[in-house]
């Protein structure tokens, strides 16, 4: 995989507590979703983002989790972003 644009962010993420996990994925030939580097860089900030996203996508709602995922995919495809 090409490195992300913020190369220092990727480097520091790999050197941090999540580094072993990234290395194991790479050793197993599993592509590391690079968004994980963005989460690993500043966990004090992104742990809250992850919990917020978890509640939003899986918490109580009249919309089923699958429907919420479809809205996420729809939004992303409209924004020409493959994720």
């Amino acid at each position, binding site marked *: 995989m090409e490195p992300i644009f913020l190369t220092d962010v990727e480097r520091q993420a790999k050197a941090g507590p999540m580094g072993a996990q990234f290395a194991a994925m790479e050793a197993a030939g599993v592509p590391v979703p690079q968004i994980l580097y963005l989460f690993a860089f500043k966990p004090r900030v992104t742990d809250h983002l*992850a919990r917020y996203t978890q509640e939003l996508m*899986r918490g109580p709602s009249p919309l089923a989790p699958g429907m*919420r995922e479809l*809205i996420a995919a*729809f939004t992303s495809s409209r*924004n020409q972003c493959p994720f």
Partner: protein
Amino acid sequence: MLGDSAKVQAVLKDYCAAPITEAEKALFQFLDKVNRQSHQISQGDVDRARSAGWTDEALYDAIAVCAQFNYYNRWIDASGVQDMPAIGYQMSGHRLATEGYGRPPAAYTAHSHSDGPDAGGYKLPTPETKVVMEPMFLREVEEREGGGQYADLIRQARAAGAPVSQIFHLFAFKPAMTDHLSYFTQELMRGPSPLSPGLRELIAAFTSRQNQCLYCANSHAAAAGRLLDNRELVHAVLENYRASALSPAEKALFGFIARVAGRSWEIRRGDVDQVRQAGWSDEALYDAITVSALFSFYNRWVHAAGVHVMPPEWHEVSGKRLADHGYFLR
């Protein structure tokens, strides 16, 4: 997770022709506008989605998901997260479907929030004349009492006859979810960073102006003016940053932020290298991208729910609260 990937593909290709219900088509039509033209969402758009059978809670959730993926899309685009081989997406999809996004609640206390602001003493000021606000588009969201720190602020505002900043209703409606959003916002906007809190507020205001969200632009411009102790600069940056008194490096950063808020999918490695050459570290760029992406979320959330702009003096009140107390008030 719908158990029907052909249906998902059909929605992504053209929801109008997809084998989904009319109500679902109405919802995607509404979300298309939330995504791309949220500043033009009207009560009529919300009413049409409602008459297709969606409750205000369903619309609140759908808006939040759509807005949140505007955050993720911009975060990913500007940082240069690359496309993966198909197997990577299959594995990510499986992980999200089985484990979700966050760690289990047992880990919630991993970080102390003791360094967050204490609103113990925060009191909204009393207005000289009564301000009547237009109702929000999502009336049930506004009418439900809600919970958490923002429900307290709403009660306080009502008791004092002060206008309720309607974003409080968006927070109070689902506090189990939005408390995390507040913590996230607080850490991002006030936590350790090479960018000062004032500069981060200015990025928030600038992004909101790009997205034509006056509500957010006014409040965060007021916060930036206080934290930077320079209202003239904030005003000048929002009017035309190129002609402002920002340094050349800051102008390069704001030029980049304009792209994060705009056509972020067109950002390339060379664009990031260029702003880095202006003197910004990767951490500074990461923080600037994250702030801007988060406000692309907030702007859509606020627009689509029908949070109305307030008289200017009340945006000053919000700006002072943000400058003095931050985003998490407990």
